[in-house]
């Protein structure tokens, strides 16, 4: 109740005041000397908008037969599938890659415990940091 009292005691001089640009004019003067709106901001799309972030595999079809592509996301020593924080792929593509790798393992396309030696010199996509 004390708070209430304080609230009503404070004066609000801006209540009931309207900015000059929005004052209503009498009908007779409506079309005379309209305030200039040319300095108002123009509605437009943000010109500094960044393009949507894409991961490395965006737009590329991931297949269980494409063993070379899948081997890029696998450790060369143990054959483990790298996690999302290492590959840098988006949710969807990481899941697709994991499923394709597991499929390739079962179907006899891709080795399980190591990386195919012929793919060892492929460009590195994953940022693996080894402890020194």
């Amino acid at each position, binding site marked *: 109740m004390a708070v209430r009292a304080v609230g009503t005691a404070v004066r609000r001089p801006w209540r009931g005041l309207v900015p000059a640009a929005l004052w209503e004019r009498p009908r007779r003067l409506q079309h005379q000397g309209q305030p200039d709106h040319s300095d108002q901001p123009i509605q437009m799309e943000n010109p500094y908008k960044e393009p949507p972030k894409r991961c490395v595999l965006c737009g590329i079809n991931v297949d269980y*037969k494409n063993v070379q592509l899948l081997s890029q996301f696998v450790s060369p020593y143990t054959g483990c599938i790298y996690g999302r924080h290492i590959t840098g792929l988006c949710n969807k593509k990481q899941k697709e890659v994991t499923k394709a790798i597991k*499929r390739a393992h*079962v*179907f*006899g*396309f*891709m*080795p*399980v415990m190591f990386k*195919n030696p012929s793919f060892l010199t492929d460009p590195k996509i994953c940022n693996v940091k080894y402890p020194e």
Partner: protein
Amino acid sequence: MPRYELALILKAMQRPETAAVLKRTVEALMERGAVVRNLENLGERSLPYKISKHKERHRRGGMLKTTVWFPGSMMNVFFDRLRGPTFDCIDHDGSFRT
């Protein structure tokens, strides 16, 4: 009928024998009411791991890939036939819907 992709691994064989196996596979598929869309030979390569089947250890195999329209109910029947007395098919687990 749903469309399936079938990946077969065959024993490492000479060209005419592979052709014969291909033919037999396609016939078996068509017998069970499949429509074979296309058939690809992915070549003979060394397998990623040794596969033991029919008391033999295989290190090399020929790979075949088929795209088929196949009635899903016939799936088990077809795989039984593959697992059966034919000694050419090493690994036939690769079949899934496209």
